[in-house]
């Protein structure tokens, strides 16, 4: 049973990943990533990490991906040009990817870390439960927890500043856009980029 679930989730994850990379339309890429994230959540469950799986679904697939959807909807899904300006990139990129995978796999499979070959030790019943995670967060990992909160605050402020309203003409590669962007900027009253998740 476990193997079936593993392979199903693995195929889902791989499929989602390949979908993100291959799809021309970024909106479809976002959807592929959502599939990928759900598959990963299943894999987390298989590894008795219930809280992480839940967080993955709620936070990642739920909030972050929604943010992506908003932005893609705003920006539009323009396709990329086919011509490659960097010579050799189209050839070297898959090569590098393959090399990376091969090396990492060799590192793992030929590792002298024998525990990799097992299924892990037997764990207690509450392994990976929210209670256990919560305890750890507030006791041993309090400082990383608080640091992560501050980081979220910074990100939120940064996003507001970055995408906020600009008074005056904006610069563009095309000079004629200066008149355009000024009324554009003023009419875009809604600040995009509200912080999706207030707390992790």
């Amino acid at each position: 049973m476990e193997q079936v679930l593993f392979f199903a989730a693995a195929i889902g994850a791989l499929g989602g990943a390949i979908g993100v990379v291959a799809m021309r339309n970024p909106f479809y890429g976002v959807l592929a990533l959502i599939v990928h994230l759900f598959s990963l959540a299943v894999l987390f469950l298989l590894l008795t990490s219930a809280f992480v799986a839940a967080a993955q679904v709620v936070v990642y697939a739920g909030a972050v991906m929604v943010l992506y959807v908003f932005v893609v909807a705003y920006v539009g899904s323009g396709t990329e040009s086919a011509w490659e300006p960097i010579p050799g990139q189209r050839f070297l990129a898959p090569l590098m990817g393959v090399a990376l995978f091969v090396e990492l796999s060799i590192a793992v499979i030929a590792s002298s870390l024998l525990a990799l070959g097992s299924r892990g030790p037997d764990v207690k019943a509450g392994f990976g439960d929210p209670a256990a995670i919560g305890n750890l967060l507030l006791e041993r990992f309090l400082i990383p927890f608080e640091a992560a909160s501050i980081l979220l605050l910074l990100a939120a402020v940064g996003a507001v500043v970055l995408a906020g309203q600009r008074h005056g003409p904006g610069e563009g590669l095309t000079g004629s856009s200066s008149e355009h962007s000024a009324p554009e900027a003023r009419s875009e009253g809604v600040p995009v980029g509200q912080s999706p998740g207030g707390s992790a």
Partner: protein
Amino acid sequence: MSATTWAWLVLLFPLLGSIAIGLGFRALPTRAAGAIGTASIALAFVCGVATLIVLLGEDPDARHHASSLWDYASAAGLDIKLGIFVDPLSVFMVLVVTGVSTLIHLYSFGYMESDEGYHRFFSYLNFFVFSMLLLVLAGNFVLLIVGWAFVGFASYALISFWYRRATATKAGIKAFVINVVGDIGLVLAAILIFRELGTFEYEAVFAKAPEVFSVNEWTVTAICLLLLVGAFAKSAQLPLHTWLPDAMEGPTPVSALIHAATMVTAGVYLIARTHALFLLAPTAADIAAFVGLATLLVAGSIALVMTDLKRAIAYSTMSQIGYMVVGVSIGAYSAGMFHLMTHAFFKALLFMAAGSIIAAMANNQNIDEMSGFGKAMRFTSITFVCGGLALAAFPATSGFFSKDEILAYAHARGGMYDIFWVLGYVGALLTAIYTFRLVFRVLPGAPCKEAQELIDSGHVVHAEPRNPASGEVEDADVGFPGAEHHIAEQSWPMRAAMAILAFLALFGGLVQVPGIDDAITRFLDPVFADSALAAIQPSVGASWVGLGIGAVISLAGIGIAYYAYIVRPELPATLIERLRPVYTLLVNKWYFDELIDILVVRPALAIGRFANQTFERIVVDGIVTGTTDTVRGAGGIVRFVQSGFVRSYALLLVAGFAGLALYFLLSTS
């Protein structure tokens, strides 16, 4: 006071005079500079006489003192002191130098009066006398080299005294460069001496030399040959003589002092001083003698055709120094020094008289345009004739006794040295001919335009100032000769100096008449006592025979000149036509200038051009700009990595990571 104290004072006064005039030239009125200059040399002469007196009061064998003021360098095996050496030879030279210098300063007092650079002249002249005295009084080779170099500099400064004349500066540079060649020889000789004998001090060197060197060993021969290079450069012997005729660009007092009486005799002094080394290297001594002989004859032959009055006298100087070099090289030390003294008298006198005549000609030095000054300038012509008689070794003049003493010695030594005896007389004949050629061309005859003006009005001609060599017009400002020309008849300092020298030129030889007195030989005896050669003395009879032959030759020469220039004046022109190739050779000064140009100057210039155009441009610039170009090129190549493409950066990142992982995989497996 001791002899060395007086000797230090001899050095002090000219130096003080030079510094005082040099620093205070703005404050001093014109004649004051001249007075200070002359007075300081006169004081030096007085101190020289005092040194002589003290020295004569001592036992002959004890008449050598070394005295030092402080140590220059006493480390690493060196022991160089600022020290002088007082012995009969140096005192002799001191007296000759200071005595003749005083008279020349007196002469310049009047001659340079209208020159804008009057103060500069006396400062330089005093400095020159100081350096010459330093050279002769030096007690070790290092101080000798210092004095030698200072003298070279003073000569350069004085030759190019009228520095805005292009010909003068070129001549000054030529003299200086050739002198530097001599300096190199001298310095190398000093280095070798130190390496072999471990010391620079004269007394130690000359005492140790016979113990360390065997006769004709290559080291001592090399030392002597290098010393000869120095001596020949300074004394204008072949082949380093080409600077002396050009040095006549300097003012006449400079020619009189430096290039007749003092500086050019420094080489002779050097050979005499280091005679102990030359005794150990007879080959070098013989080479020196033959070079002197060659110079004697070549210079004499050139003087026969020279039309520039001062240059003719310059070649005469070269020839007479050839006699002196022969003298001190073959062992006739005191005879050589005696001739040095008498030559100083009559050559300085000749230059002074020539200066007076040239002034009357408004700085024109061409004897083709001079005639009849015998009537126009009585005093000058009388002194000129006195000097000429002495130079031509007319019987009973000073030059007569000194020149024939050298030749008598050569005969007494015999063997190969009879060549010097015979050719010496040939040279004497040439000397008499060319001297009286000058006398008979310039003095008798119908007065030329300038002489006529003198006779009529007593005024010196005021022609437009011109460079006598190139003919270009000059003004009378600083760096050029002054506006007025001063002749002896109108200037009492000039007359006084010339009168004294005329007296000495005529009667100065009476101190050393063979068989009657030999004051100079006796005086210089202790210096040369260690030389076996000095013991060879011609017998009195042989000396008088030599004197007789000399008298005959001198009169014959004067007679030939009289015949050629007075009786049959068209004879020289016919001879020139008949012997045109010989004449061309002589007029071109035996092509020495051209030879040196081809052998030395052109290669040096070619090397300089090569260094500038090729080496500098390709190698040095190549290294410098090549480095910058390489760096810039490398930067240009590396710059391509910064393309601005994020994806290529990412690619490099991933590639780097993959490489790193590969490395770790390989290193741990």
